[in-house]
């Protein structure tokens, strides 16, 4: 479990993390979402015990990171931003170093080493210097380092940054498998990742917590939530008819591909009504879609409510 209470960090006059209180339970994958410079990494560094909070507390598995740093660090697997590792070492040497630092028993360490190397597909690069590895491989080495001691709590700062789509998929599967009985906190600015991985999202900007919800709840805040979109050539007439439906709030036409999106009034469901109308008009509809809501739009809406302040910080 990860708990933070009023966690705050200032750099001079700048407040990088502002009274952040979050709680992640076992079985949860919490996505820490925010624009660049929002304070995601700073928050994680405090939870990992690298930075000392200006005020507030963070606990990992009940251990306060300031009072019982070693116990907290033992319970935590942490992938720092950019997945730093010792470049002059080979992958095998580096992982052995982590084994020794973590004080793993010989038997456990062999089993874990083999398991992790297999999970992250590092077999072929074990004897290669980390310096010469590609960005994606280095990230996987960093991940291997983080999960080597099979920690109950995992904190990953942008785990799939720099990976190709296949590698992203592999890492997400790995996190999915690990998520069952663990507490996982990942930071990301990739919205697709939130869909693929997280069962809870915390959005922060300028160090402040702005939203704490499930991905579905966030999508429901989008104005696209419940909207119906379709492509139908020559549907000029029916647009007017659609606008007259009592549940419909507005209609937009994409100027590029002519795709029509019909927005409902709040709390209304319009899919059936739209379908019925189109059928009555005898229109050829190639494809019709009920929108779940757009995370990117919600993200923008939440994080840019105070644009000018954000620009000053950037």
């Amino acid at each position, binding site marked *: 479990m990860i708990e933070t209470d009023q966690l705050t960090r200032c750099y001079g006059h700048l407040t990088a993390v502002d009274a952040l209180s979050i709680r992640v339970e076992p079985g949860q994958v919490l996505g820490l979402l925010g624009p660049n410079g929002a304070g995601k990494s700073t928050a994680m560094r405090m939870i990992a015990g690298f930075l000392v909070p200006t005020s507030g507390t963070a606990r990992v598995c009940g251990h306060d990171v300031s009072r019982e740093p070693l116990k907290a*660090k033992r319970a935590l697997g942490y992938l720092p931003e950019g997945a730093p590792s010792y470049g002059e070492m080979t992958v095998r040497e580096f992982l052995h170093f*982590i084994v020794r*630092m973590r004080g793993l028993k010989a038997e456990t360490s062999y089993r874990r080493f083999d398991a992790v190397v297999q999970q992250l597909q590092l077999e072929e690069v074990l004897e290669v210097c980390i310096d010469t590895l590609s960005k994606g491989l280095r990230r996987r080495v960093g991940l291997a380092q983080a999960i080597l001691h099979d920690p109950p709590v995992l904190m990953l700062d942008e785990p799939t940054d720099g990976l190709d789509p296949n590698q992203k998929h592999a890492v997400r599967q790995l996190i999915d498998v690990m998520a069952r009985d663990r507490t996982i906190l990942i930071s990301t600015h990739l919205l697709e990742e939130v869909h693929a991985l997280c069962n809870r999202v915390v959005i922060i900007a300028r160090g402040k917590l702005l939203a704490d919800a499930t991905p579905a709840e966030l999508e429901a805040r989008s104005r696209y939530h419940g909207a119906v979109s379709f492509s139908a050539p020559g549907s000029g007439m029916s647009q007017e008819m659609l606008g007259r439906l009592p549940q419909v709030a507005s209609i937009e036409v994409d100027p590029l591909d002519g795709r029509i999106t019909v927005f409902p009034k709040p709390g209304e469901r319009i899919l059936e009504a739209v379908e019925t109308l189109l059928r009555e008009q005898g229109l050829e509809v190639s494809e019709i879609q009920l929108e779940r809501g757009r995370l990117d739009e919600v993200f923008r809406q939440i994080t840019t409510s105070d644009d000018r302040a954000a620009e000053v910080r950037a």
Partner: protein
Amino acid sequence: MSPVNAVLRRELRSYFVTPVAYVFLVIFLVLSGILTFYAGDYYERGQADLQPFFAMHPWLYLILVPAITMRMWAEEAKGGTLELLLTLPLTLWQAMLGKFLAAWLFIGLALALTFPIWITVNYLGSPDNGIILAGYLGSWLMAGSFVAIGACLSALTRSQVVAFILTALVCVLLILIGQPQVLDFFSGALPRKLINAVAHLSMLRHFEAIARGVLDVRDLLYFLLSTLGWLLAGVLLLDLKRTR
């Protein structure tokens, strides 16, 4: 295996993977040999001892120890591995100690590899091997203090060059501070007692005492305490950086 040991082994390995170790060993061995025979008038003195050899060590350490220690923390801070290291379950003291011991043991190895000169002097005459042993001990202790200074100042900055220059500067101050010329320079401006106190801070004075074969507890304590003091300062610096 304890974290100190793990850090120590990693550091030592990194010396030998990069050319640092070999460059250091070669330069140290060549220079200590050349300086002893040419600058130290090893033959002309006609004495079966290693005084000229040990007399060169402070000056060799002045250049070579900062070269070893400059990367100790600066490189980790710059490369981001500091975050990795300090989020592993070890205390700052353990990390500092592991790194210090690695560098100190490495210099011990360099010292041990100067054994041909010991064989030479034994072949040429019959020196007091006790004094030579004391010389080696004193030299190694002094190297320890230099390494501790370098470790502390490397924690101060992300730049290896800055760490090198600061370390060399502090070391040269500590070597020269007890020299008569320096003390005379200040004798007019400062009270006698202060001058005497400052003179006792001199590395050279304590090292020369040990190298003469006089194992005084005060000289040993000087090196022990200055080493621990600088390491402590380094740990405090690292801790301060986490809050800043």
